[in-house]
């Protein structure tokens, strides 16, 4: 035990077991003499020695040696209640340790008491005591250090190597040697791939932790909030006094004097030269006209035909609807010669003749059909009211239709065409039969023509100016609005009632020679105008002396209201006022008494083209010859036989009101009113017959002629006057009618109908639409030149 303790660092402490007997001997009985607190016992050395000698086995035996060597007299034995050193008692072997054990607890207690006293007196101030140097007390650590330190165990061997003495200082010979030549003159440590490190790590367990980066930031902005702000202002104006003052100020006068000269110069310049002349445009046009050969063509746009109604028929007349875009009406008649027509007893075989309305939107199904009592030779839309259509029949009657109910449908037909896909509705519509409109008025057979009506024209309405004329008893204006002519030698002027048809005509009132047309304001009981409609004026074209009858096929009248002036207090132009009574030429129908005044400013001349190819220029105004009291016409009729066949076109130019184009037979001619010698231009006879023709609506020098072989000849008077500038074939059969129309500023159409019942609509190319610069003036020049040659 004692040896053990010496290694644990307490060499002077020897644990002992004291038996009870020993305890009694040395008065250290546990519980009585020695307690926990009072655990020190001093035992004399001599007593211990005695004990050792006497007892066979003493408790002090293990420490016998220590006891004997102990210098002091008393040994300390400490009761170890807690078995701190392994036994219940321990012996302290040295004096010093004894002292330490006995005393330190006292001093510690003393110190604690002192400290408590000190704390009560002064808490903060603790005088700084530098650490007192104490001798180092070995606690056994130097042994550990000694063991761990590395010492050389083996003595070092010394070697001394030196060269042999004689070799020192000997002359040297040095040579070069290339290191790479000799193999082992150097040792290389070549790198090599260590196999241990080749293995690629394919999988590596790596721990990853994600931490979101969070960053705090803050800003402060100045928030400007929107605010409504409005200002109301009115322009500054000077008051009237200020204006007066400034007007009369000297400064203004000086200013005006200085400035007015400049302004005058500028204005004069403007007067001299037209400042609004566009040089660019003029330049472009010149270039295009001087170009080689611009393309002239008629592009096929659409063609319309109907197998049911128009089979085996020829189209006699084609008319565009004046207001609705894309609506065109076509009238067809049987292609029978006269004998066949007369001999045809069974009229029921003939199909009901119709006027068919086509729309661009639907080339297969007609939009509207007008029922005709007979074959229609010609028809026209009324220009002032496109819902009224007048047509002339093959038996000489004149028929009127009113399509006001269907106007909306026709207009919708156009709008549907604008859509891209035909809706189901439209398909359904087109599958239906087109509505059939019955005529609303037909003239009486007695008083109509005896032969087919070949030409029909609407005259512009005269104004319904009631307030101007107070002298007229008859309030309603009687205006002649419809002119018809027929090869039976008569020209008829018809009137349409002012209000909408059907208009109740009055029963006969006063009658002068022929039966009357009733003024519309007289009420009547009959409902329809059917068969009661009579012409107003009938002109027989027969010379009293020559006794020759003309059979006009075409008529061209000047517009009868050409020189109407509203400023002067003239009576409204009533044609009845012009004609005297009882002339062999004219048979008038007048109702009640009227002031008949001859107005000389009206032009009453007209051109007619006859069946035989004559052009007759005459007038139908007659005057009373003062001598013989017989009406004599003022002007003589002029007749010209130029054409070889029936005149089929007699038309005034839309640009020059006195220039007329006549087409018939194998040639055509251009006439100027006033020139009595002959036509100003006459074409040579061509191989085929000309069957139709029309002036161009936009270019003054261009007109179209249709031939019997299906060609269209386009004549341009500015280019060539001896042959057409362009020929284009449209159909296989003869062309029966040509009608141009302006669809839009960019798109002009030409409707061409042929003898097979097909209507071709062609688009006119740009060169034929836009007039050349100065074309009007040039064409006028040309006509005047030609006229001068004739004189």
């Amino acid at each position: 035990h004692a040896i053990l303790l010496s290694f644990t660092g307490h060499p002077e402490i020897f644990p002992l077991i004291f038996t009870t007997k020993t305890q009694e001997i040395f008065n250290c009985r546990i519980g009585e003499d020695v307690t926990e607190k009072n655990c020190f016992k001093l035992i004399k050395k001599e007593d211990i020695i005695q004990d050792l000698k006497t007892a066979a086995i003493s408790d002090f035996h293990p420490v016998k040696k220590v006891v004997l060597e102990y210098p002091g007299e008393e040994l300390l034995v400490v009761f170890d209640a807690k078995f701190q050193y392994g036994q219940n008692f321990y012996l302290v072997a040295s004096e010093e340790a004894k002292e330490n054990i006995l005393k330190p607890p006292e001093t510690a207690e003393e110190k604690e008491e002192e400290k408590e006293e000190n704390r009560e007196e002064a808490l903060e101030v603790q005088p700084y005591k530098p650490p007192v140097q104490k001798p180092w007390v070995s606690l056994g650590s130097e042994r550990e250090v000694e063991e761990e330190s590395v010492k050389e165990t083996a003595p070092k061997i010394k070697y001394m190597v030196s060269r042999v003495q004689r070799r020192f200082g000997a002359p040297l010979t040095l040579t070069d040697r290339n290191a790479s030549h000799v193999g082992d003159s150097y040792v290389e440590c070549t790198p090599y791939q260590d196999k241990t490190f080749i293995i690629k790590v394919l999988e590596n367990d790596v721990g990853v932790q994600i931490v979101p980066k969070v960053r705090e930031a803050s800003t402060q902005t100045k928030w400007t909030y929107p605010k409504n702000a409005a200002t109301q202002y009115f322009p500054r104006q000077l008051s009237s006094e200020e204006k007066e003052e400034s007007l009369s100020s000297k400064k203004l006068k000086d200013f005006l004097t200085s400035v007015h000269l400049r302004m005058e110069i500028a204005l004069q310049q403007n007067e001299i030269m037209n400042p609004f002349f566009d040089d660019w445009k003029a330049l472009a046009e010149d270039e295009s006209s001087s170009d080689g050969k611009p393309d002239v063509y008629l592009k096929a746009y659409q063609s319309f035909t109907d197998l049911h109604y128009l089979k085996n028929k020829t189209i006699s007349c084609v008319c565009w609807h004046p207001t609705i875009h894309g609506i065109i009406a076509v009238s067809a008649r049987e292609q029978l010669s006269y004998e066949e027509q007369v001999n045809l007893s069974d009229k029921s075989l003939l199909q009901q003749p119709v006027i068919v309305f086509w729309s661009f939107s639907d080339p297969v199904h007609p939009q509207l059909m007008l029922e005709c009592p007979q074959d229609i030779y010609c028809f026209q839309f009324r220009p002032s009211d496109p819902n009224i259509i007048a047509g002339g029949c093959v038996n000489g009657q004149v028929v009127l239709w009113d399509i006001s109910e269907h106007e909306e449908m026709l207009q919708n037909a156009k709008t549907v065409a604008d859509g891209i896909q035909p809706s189901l509705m439209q398909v359904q519509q087109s599958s239906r039969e087109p509505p059939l409109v019955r005529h609303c008025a037909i003239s009486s057979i007695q008083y109509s023509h005896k032969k087919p009506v070949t030409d029909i024209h609407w005259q512009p309405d005269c104004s319904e100016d009631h307030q101007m004329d107070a002298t007229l008893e008859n309030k309603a204006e009687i205006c002649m609005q419809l002119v018809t002519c027929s090869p039976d030698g008569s020209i008829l002027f018809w009137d349409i009632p002012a209000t909408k048809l059907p208009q109740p005509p009055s029963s006969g009132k006063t009658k002068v020679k022929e039966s009357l047309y009733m003024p519309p304001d007289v009420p009547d009981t009959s409902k329809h105008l059917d068969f009661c409609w009579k012409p107003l004026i009938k002109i027989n074209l027969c010379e009293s002396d020559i006794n020759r009858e003309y059979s006009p096929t075409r008529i061209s009248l000047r517009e009868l209201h050409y020189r109407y002036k509203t400023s002067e207090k003239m009576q409204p132009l009533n044609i009845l006022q012009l004609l005297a009574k009882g002339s062999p030429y004219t048979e008038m129908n007048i109702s009640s008494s009227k002031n008949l005044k001859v107005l000389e400013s009206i032009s009453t001349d007209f051109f007619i083209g006859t069946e035989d190819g004559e052009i007759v220029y005459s007038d139908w105004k007659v005057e009373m010859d003062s001598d013989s009291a017989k009406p004599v016409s003022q002007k003589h009729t002029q007749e010209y036989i130029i054409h070889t066949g029936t005149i089929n076109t007699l038309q005034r130019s839309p640009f020059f009101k006195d220039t007329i184009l006549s087409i018939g037979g194998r040639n055509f001619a251009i006439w100027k009113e006033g020139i009595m010698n002959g036509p100003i231009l006459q074409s040579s006879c061509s191989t085929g017959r000309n069957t139709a023709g029309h002036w161009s609506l936009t270019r003054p020098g261009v007109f179209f002629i249709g031939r019997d072989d299906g060609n269209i000849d386009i004549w341009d008077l500015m280019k060539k006057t001896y042959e057409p500038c362009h020929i284009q074939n449209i159909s296989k059969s003869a062309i029966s009618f040509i009608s141009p129309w302006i669809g839009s500023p960019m798109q002009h159409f030409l409707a061409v109908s042929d003898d097979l019942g097909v209507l071709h609509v062609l688009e006119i190319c740009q060169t034929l639409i836009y007039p050349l610069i100065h074309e009007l003036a040039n064409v006028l020049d040309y006509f005047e030149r030609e006229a001068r040659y004739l004189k």
Partner: protein
Amino acid sequence: GIPVRTTLDNSTTVQYAGLLRELTRKARSAVRDIDPQNDLTFLRIRSKKHEILVAPDKDYLLIVIQNP
């Protein structure tokens, strides 16, 4: 500018006066920028429908509108 004497109606006059005042000012400054010795004597604006003639001065402006 403020109109002093006019033959048109008031609103048109005021509009013309205001707009053309600015325009002449700009035109004058353009001319003088190019050559400081120069000055604007007359301004003519030709448009499709009218021609506007402007004669500027130190204090006053004379504006003429001409139709073809």
